[in-house]
């Protein structure tokens, strides 16, 4: 065979082995100028098949539709151990009560209910003793949005409302027939309602009372916890997990329960020994299945008449029940009934329990205090409660005062109105200038406000805080302005 010349590169291969033999087809002759591969030119492969093959986009049995994956840019990749469930919530809701950098205020007295009646305490800041701080922490009386983390130790201002509250605590403690004080605190945002509740709880703890606290009424109605209708009762629903957590906190906050024992038999789903302490009974209630019957048993024991002569463990102290965020339980909850309609908050057993005591329908045999506070920053829409507060305030001010009337052509939540019948309401207003001076001196002595406390400064801050609203005063002096 003669030497072939490659038409592309015009080279003459010397050895016959280097000759590339172009396979010829029998069907078609490929032209000499063709640039396509012979296989393609032969028509054996389709044009569509010449495109680069894309794998993974064909519909398969498991993925019927082609999915386009978008990869976002500049997203930080999570490395390391992810946070455990509940860790982030705990970090968000943690309460820090101490700042080691703050200066210690020398000579600060402790909040002692007996000493509050002394006029010299009024207007000064009193510290909370440690044996009161621990139970307050357990019942979640401290809120993360409050400014506890800026000072050396938790301390509150003794204002005129504190002195008044202390007088009621004293009255209840000294009364023989079981006097009950029922109040609703309302006022502007930041006026100090929640801290007044905390002060009442602190006084109750120091006097040895039993304290039950609902720190956020929103948690009762927001629909985040389980709910179950009561057996053969369409109207009332119980909340097992919430009740279980309440029962778990009760003996931790009230060590006195360990010394009390039941005075009568209770019909409980589990068998309990007769001499069980109330603290141990509460511990048994940590199981959500039996939480509600055990809560009812414990409560009936606490409100049973005190029998100091019968034996040990039958003395019953007064009870303080506190609730923050009253608006949430005076409207419809987020729970649904079997028809898909929203449950009214009063259909929840725990809410009914609190409101029956607030309205006075269920009396406390050994006396006590039932206080509720509204929240300015976390308010549910409850026109009925707003109207009831105005009406009750007008009724209490003077007999012939102008009592507001509801527009009869507008709907109103009658259940909430009825629940607020006869309840004393208390408007919390701003501090006086002397009280403002007292708390500003505390800020300055702690080193958190680096200014001299003069009359000019006190007047300026008092005015700028809307007439002495404590929350605004703290914000203006210590938090937003250093």
């Amino acid at each position, binding site marked *: 065979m003669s030497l072939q010349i490659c038409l592309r590169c015009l080279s003459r291969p010397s050895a016959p082995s280097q000759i590339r033999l172009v396979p010829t087809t029998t069907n078609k002759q490929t032209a000499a100028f063709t640039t396509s591969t012979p296989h393609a030119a032969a028509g054996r492969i389709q044009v569509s098949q010449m495109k680069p093959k894309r794998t993974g986009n064909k519909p398969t049995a498991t993925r019927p539709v082609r999915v386009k994956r978008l990869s976002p840019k500049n997203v*930080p990749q999570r*490395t*390391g151990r992810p*946070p455990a469930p509940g*860790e*982030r*919530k705990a*970090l*968000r809701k943690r309460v*820090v009560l101490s*700042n*080691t*950098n*703050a*200066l210690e205020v020398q000579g600060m007295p402790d909040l002692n209910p007996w000493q509050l009646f002394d006029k010299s305490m009024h207007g000064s800041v009193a510290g909370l003793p440690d044996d009161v701080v621990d139970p307050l922490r357990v019942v979640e009386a401290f809120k993360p949005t409050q400014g506890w*983390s*800026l000072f050396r130790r938790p301390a509150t201002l003794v204002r005129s409302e504190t002195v008044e509250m202390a007088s009621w605590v004293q009255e209840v403690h000294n009364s023989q027939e079981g006097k009950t004080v029922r109040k609703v605190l309302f006022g502007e945002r930041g006026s100090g309602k929640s801290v007044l509740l905390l002060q009442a709880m602190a006084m109750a703890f120091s006097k040895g009372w039993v304290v039950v606290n609902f720190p956020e009424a929103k948690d009762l109605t927001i629909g985040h916890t389980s709910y179950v209708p009561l057996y053969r009762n369409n109207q009332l629903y119980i909340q097992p997990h919430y009740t279980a957590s309440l029962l778990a906190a009760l003996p931790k906050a009230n060590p006195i329960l360990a010394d009390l024992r039941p005075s009568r038999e209770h019909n409980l789903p589990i068998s309990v020994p007769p001499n069980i302490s109330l603290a141990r009974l509460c511990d048994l209630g940590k199981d959500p299945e039996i939480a509600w019957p055990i809560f009812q048993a414990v409560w009936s024991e606490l409100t049973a008449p005190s029998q100091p002569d019968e034996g040990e463990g039958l003395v019953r102290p007064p009870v303080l029940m506190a609730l923050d965020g009253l608006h949430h339980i005076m409207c419809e909850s987020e729970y649904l009934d079997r028809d898909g309609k929203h449950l009214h908050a009063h259909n929840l057993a725990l809410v009914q329990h609190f409101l029956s005591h607030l309205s006075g329908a269920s009396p406390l045999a050994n006396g006590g205090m039932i206080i509720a506070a509204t929240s300015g920053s976390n308010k549910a829409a409850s026109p009925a409660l707003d109207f009831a507060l105005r009406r009750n305030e007008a009724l209490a001010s003077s007999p012939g005062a102008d009592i507001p009337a509801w527009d009869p052509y507008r709907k109103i939540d009658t259940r909430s109105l009825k629940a607020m019948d006869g309840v004393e309401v208390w408007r919390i207003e701003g501090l006086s200038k002397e009280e403002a001076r007292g708390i500003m001196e505390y800020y300055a002595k702690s*080193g*958190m406000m*680096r200014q001299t406390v003069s009359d000019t400064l006190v007047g300026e801050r008092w005015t700028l805080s809307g007439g002495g609203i404590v929350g605004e005063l703290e914000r203006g002096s210590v*938090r*937003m302005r*250093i």
Partner: protein
Amino acid sequence: MPPRLNIFAAPRAPVYRPRQSIAVRENGRICVIRQPLCRTFADKSGSLPVAEEGGLDGVSSEGAEVGRMGGEVKGPNMQTSEHVSEEAAKMAKMTGGEGPDLDVGTPVQDILKEDKEALENAPQVLKDSLKSGASPPKPSSTPSTQSRSYSTTRSLRALHSDSMATDDVADSPVFNSVNAETGEGQDLMSSEATIPGSSGHIFPLPELPLPRNTHLHYRYDPVVDQVTNLLMKDGKLSVAQRNMSIILTHLRTAPAPMYSGNKPLLPGAPPASHLPLNPILYLTLAIDSVAPLLRIRSQRGAAGGGAALQIPIPLSLRQRRRQAVQWILDAAEKRKSRGSGRGLFAQKVAEEIVSVVEGRSGIWERR
């Protein structure tokens, strides 16, 4: 045809206010200077401009045509008689008696004596008092209880009377208000006593220069202000201020930093235990310690052989701080947080500032 316009007639006299010349004693000599065109005070004692007789248009209120030059027709409101009190004051001056006190309002009884029509329509009480012959309060040397002590015209009159009494034109504050050289005016309500008899100021004078942080736009510390603006995104300054307060609160609640000797902090830095209670100083120390002093600008092709020439350029204080804060914010973004909720970025920035002061931060290498 002769033109209708008589161009050879004398033009009408332009309306102008003749400039006053005043005699001022300067350096022992009396020189006459002319007042500036715009006077700086309302001076009643000076001569007021004379209105052109016959009005500008040449038409009087009666409607009769008058000539341009001359003519005795007065315009409206020019023929009214003088006020009772002023007339009485003039009469008293001429006759030598004591006139009414012009600072006080004219007693009603005097007006009603002149004006019979008003007397008819006056209230019965006033008529009775007139009949009974109650006399208005006489002017006395001591200021009456009804006199207004804050009246400005009263003080002006007092000044004029003083100046007239001393007969010293040059020393009068009224005339001295015109500066001989510059022609500028001066406030009459100056720090000099405006109320005769008082010797000081009603309110204490401020201490000049006024502190910078009393001005609304400069009320925050400069470092805090700059960091807040650099934290701001999408123009949301209030969010940036909230984050700034979170940063400062973290700086004063976190444990005091521990200085490491290897990284140079700003000279004159206080002991580490002082920093948490003064979070602004803490922040300033961190920023100013890690801030670069120069930046390098490259000039293309200037070094020869196509290489870029490195030129160091000094940075101003604000530029230095800005660069340092940018580095801090970039490093904070890269930090990992395990929490949730608001203020996470501010928390990271605060932790970065603490690590800068402690010398652990990666910014020191970047510097």
